[in-house]
């Protein structure tokens, strides 16, 4: 679990990971991800979101290590600000733009599993609906039409906001995408805030469960 100055969801995400496996925090100045089987980039406001969300974080030493880890096939999950960082780093296609409504959003949304073939959704069924909160100002997924067509054709769209629930104006209701190799995924909703019945939904746990299941040797 990477921690940048300005991260704020790393502890929730760390605890969510620990429900399904072992997890440790990784400071942004680290030059290696150690013996991690997967890396999670959490939500927050890395480096104060200066310039653009994720623009500075992508040049941190740990992100160079994450880039090498991803290139070698390692599983990388970016949540919210982590999604923005992965897009800025070029590890995921597209970019996140300010919400069409201009406002900070904080609400529960329903997303549909558009691909259960990913490392991050393999415990889910195709079409399954997950209730997970979003909380962001800059979450409108954008990519060119050609790239969007390719993402859909290649099954790289993993989660979509349910019809009528797109909170931020994301292209084609996209809530989560993977890279072409499908080992890196970014999503705007916060699965780490939906792992305990206390907060109303445990659907977010399905993603951590999927990730952990894929890493355990059979």
């Amino acid at each position, binding site marked *: 679990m990477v921690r940048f100055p300005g991260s704020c969801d790393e502890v929730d995400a760390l605890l969510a990971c620990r429900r399904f496996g072992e997890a440790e925090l990784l400071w942004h100045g680290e030059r290696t991800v150690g013996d991690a089987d997967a890396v999670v980039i959490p939500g927050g406001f890395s480096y104060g979101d200066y*310039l653009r969300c994720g*623009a500075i974080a992508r040049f941190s030493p740990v992100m160079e290590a994450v880039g090498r880890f991803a290139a070698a096939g390692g599983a990388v999950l970016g949540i919210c600000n982590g999604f923005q960082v992965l897009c800025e780093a070029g590890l995921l296609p*597209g970019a996140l*733009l300010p919400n069409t*409504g*201009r406002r900070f959003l904080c609400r529960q949304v329903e997303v549909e599993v558009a691909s259960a073939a990913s490392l991050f959704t393999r415990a889910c069924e195709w079409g399954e609906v997950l209730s997970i909160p979003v909380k962001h100002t800059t979450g409108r997924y954008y*990519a060119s039409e050609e790239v969007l067509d390719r993402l859909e054709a290649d099954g790289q769209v993993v989660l979509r906001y349910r019809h009528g629930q797109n909170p931020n104006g994301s292209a084609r209701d996209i809530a989560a995408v993977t890279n072409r190799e499908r080992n890196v995924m970014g999503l705007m909703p916060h699965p780490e805030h939906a792992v305990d019945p206390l907060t109303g939904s445990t659907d977010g746990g399905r993603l951590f469960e999927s990730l952990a299941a894929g890493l355990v040797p059979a």
Partner: protein
Amino acid sequence: MKARVLIRPKEGILDPQGQVVERALPALGFEGVSNVRVGRMVELELEDTAGIEEMCERLLANPLIEDYEVLLLEPAADPAS
């Protein structure tokens, strides 16, 4: 050398901030304003301008969603001279 980099959302990309500004202007009596785009401006002092394009491509702008324009300005006048 002083440089000014103007960064704005690419044409065709919805700019909600620009729309809000555009809608606010008539309320002040300014009619006939359209296509308002809100961006940002970065000012730099450079010893050498050779790297400025690369700075824009790699950090100052995200070329996927933003256009940028570099203006090279005269060095500021030295008050002592």
